[in-house]
């Protein structure tokens, strides 16, 4: 057991524990805050695994933006502050499928990689990741930028009430399907 192993174990236990609280908590807001803890622990795992830039992007995008968006949505839908009784379906089928998928994959990985020691990677700095993205991965990068733009336009079209499909408007402006 090296220091890296101890860190991996501790951060992994934190990530899995708070992830379990995300899917079982009966408070909507607490669920979102446990998600912050889980995502932060995963960012720590990235740091230990040598993917520095991914760790910081994880904190910026996930903890900074996605969770805030989710909490905004929780508040905009007038979620109750206290515990909600009707958040869950019956547990058994979900536990069967989820537990089966999780434990099955875990057994598969444990069997494939056993307790083999791998060399710790040198930290992947932003310079190296930038060389990768703008060298070998430049086409997927551009495609992703187009996808982000279209997702942005789609979200705006969806959430503005004044544009979108009009039912029974006589000879109006061209319809935008919503």
């Amino acid at each position, binding site marked *: 057991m090296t220091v890296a*192993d101890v860190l991996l174990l501790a951060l992994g236990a934190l990530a899995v524990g708070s992830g379990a609280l995300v899917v079982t908590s009966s408070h909507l807001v607490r669920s979102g805050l446990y998600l912050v803890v889980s995502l932060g622990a*995963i960012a720590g795992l990235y740091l230990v695994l040598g*993917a520095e830039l991914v760790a910081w992007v994880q904190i910026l995008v996930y903890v900074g933006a996605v969770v805030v968006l989710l909490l905004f949505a929780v508040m905009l839908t007038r979620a109750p502050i206290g515990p909600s009784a009707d958040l869950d379906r019956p547990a058994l089928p979900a536990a069967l499928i989820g537990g089966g998928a999780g434990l099955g994959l875990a057994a598969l990985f444990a069997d494939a990689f056993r307790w083999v020691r791998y060399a710790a990677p040198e930290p992947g700095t932003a310079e190296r*990741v930038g060389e990768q993205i703008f060298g070998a*991965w430049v086409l997927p990068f551009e495609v992703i930028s187009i996808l982000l733009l279209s997702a942005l336009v789609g*979200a705006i079209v969806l959430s503005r009430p004044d544009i979108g499909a009009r039912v029974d408007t006589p000879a109006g402006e061209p319809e935008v399907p919503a």
Partner: protein
Amino acid sequence: MHVVIPYVVGALLFGLGVYGVLRRRNAILVLMAVELMLNAVNLILVTADVSLRSALTGVVVESWARPGAATPGSGGVLALFVIVLAAAEVGVGLAIILQYYRMRKAVVVDEVRLDDDEERVAG
């Protein structure tokens, strides 16, 4: 380092995400569980970058790929792409949820009716 630890953590997080998607009724909580699953995949991508690094050194790059395409570090780049995709997904998903809430005053996914187009409420 023993890469089996983050692999198992990723698998367990994915299982928790599947459980959450199937268990939760609130659409926002379903999105949170989807985020857990995407993060598990990211963790496995980054870990695979570490564990396959030794196997990839000295491998001749395929002729269809650019030189340097299969170099170590690709796992991190793919993880970055997945993070961007997840951000786009949560943006559009929350727009849909909020629009649905505006129309129906509810965010419960198993009460969504798909067959009542004609009595839609004006947004």
